[in-house]
């Protein structure tokens, strides 16, 4: 129960904060009447900025005006204390109508309120509040704009963009001093990308489709890669080259039999062979520059070069190496052979 009470109390406090500073002012005034006298000096300094802000912020809500009025006279505030709740009740709807600013303002207000207590310069905090509010409004507007962009990003935005740099500059942040947010920049860069290459919008890019390898078990310790020659044909690579790579990667031996299927020693399933094939395609089939699979593999002075038919790039590819091979057979037999 006590929690609820405290909660409600907090809520009311927050509302007050939201609404106007009156509650703070009142409290401050009650507690620190003496300080008020001291605090008055800061006010004279304020006017310059105050005026400027006033000019900027003229289209503000009534609440601010009210608060300013309160700022003028402490006594008035005191008197009004009893009415605060009623006023709040009245003002609440207004706020809710203005809707979006409320939460942000609420959070921001915590800071200024402390300042108020310290300064007791009512107009100063009011200004602060206004300033922040203004920023919030701008951001909100910008966000709304962004949302709009997302919605009809292909239509109006695009046209505006094409029309000239002015519009690019005319992004939501350009009118204000505030920094652009990451999201805004991100959406902007994607807009530009989509605009410059419309193909990308349709589908990411042509996927390189491969037929899956058919791998069967032959007996207990051999596997057969049934559509080996077909896959080599699809990749436009010599079976010899693919075979060398497969055997080097798998670290086994194997050969192509009479009906063009590859027999590999060891038990492998389709997934494993697919992995190796994928690596082969990545290294020896797709162009390293543009990723196009439309390439030729040429042998030039003992080195393999990958020539791309799409972008014309030509780069060398790693030679197939089986690397270190440990002795797994019978050592005695090897010794007998070499000796």
């Amino acid at each position, binding site marked *: 129960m006590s929690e609820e009470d405290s909660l409600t109390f907090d809520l009311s406090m927050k509302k007050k904060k939201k609404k106007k500073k009156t509650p703070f002012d009142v409290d401050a005034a009650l507690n620190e009447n003496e300080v008020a006298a001291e605090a008055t000096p800061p006010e004279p300094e304020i006017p310059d900025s105050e005026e400027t802000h006033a000019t900027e912020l003229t289209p503000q809500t009534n609440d601010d005006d009210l608060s300013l009025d309160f700022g003028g006279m402490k006594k008035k505030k005191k008197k009004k204390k009893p009415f605060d709740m009623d006023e709040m009740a009245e003002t609440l709807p207004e706020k809710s109508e203005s809707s979006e600013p409320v939460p942000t303002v609420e959070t921001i207000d915590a800071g200024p309120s402390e300042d108020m207590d310290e300064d007791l310069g009512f107009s100063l905090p009011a200004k602060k509040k206004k300033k922040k509010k203004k920023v919030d409004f701008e951001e909100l507007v910008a966000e709304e704009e962004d949302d709009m962009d997302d919605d009809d990003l292909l239509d109006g935005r695009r046209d505006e963009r094409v029309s000239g740099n002015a519009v690019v500059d005319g992004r939501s942040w350009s009118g204000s001093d505030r920094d652009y947010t990451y999201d805004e920049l991100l959406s902007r860069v994607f807009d530009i990308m989509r605009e410059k290459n419309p193909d990308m919008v349709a589908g990411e890019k042509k996927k390189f489709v491969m037929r899956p390898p058919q791998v069967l078990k032959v007996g207990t*310790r051999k596997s057969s890669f049934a559509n080996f020659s077909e896959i080599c044909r699809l990749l436009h690579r010599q079976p010899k080259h693919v075979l060398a790579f497969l055997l*080097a*990667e*798998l*670290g*086994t031996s194997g050969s192509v039999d009479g009906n063009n299927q590859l027999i590999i*020693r*060891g*038990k*492998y399933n389709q997934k*494993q*062979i697919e*992995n*190796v094939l994928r690596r082969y395609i990545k290294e020896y089939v797709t162009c390293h520059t543009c990723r196009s699979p439309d390439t030729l593999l040429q042998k030039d002075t003992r080195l393999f070069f990958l020539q791309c038919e799409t972008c014309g790039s030509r780069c060398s590819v790693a030679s197939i190496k*089986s*690397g*270190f*091979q*440990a002795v*797994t057979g019978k050592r005695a037999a090897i010794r007998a052979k070499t000796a």
Partner: protein
Amino acid sequence: MTSIGQTFGNSFDPFKEASKEDGRQTGVQEGLIHIRIQQRNGRKTLTTVQGISTDYDLKKIVKACKKEFACNGTVVEHPEYGEVIQLQGDQRNNIRDFLKSIGIAREEQLKVHGF
């Protein structure tokens, strides 16, 4: 008969500077570490790790690996590939994670072969 190593010296590596070019290489490891799998008889396999920098004491690495992976292992000397670690069984994922976590090599320096 003299071997190539005796004549020209093993320490000279013509591609040393080329592989160091990116400058942000922090460790002493340069070049790729190849982790391979090799068939033995039956369903037994052997994992070989080739290309770990000679600045490391491979024997100590093997000792740690043996304990960590609960397998046997050894270091063999090869005239072309230098010192190579052999571990029993398919330890490819284990050794990859081990080398990464211990900071010997970065992800892009490890090349795991096999299926």
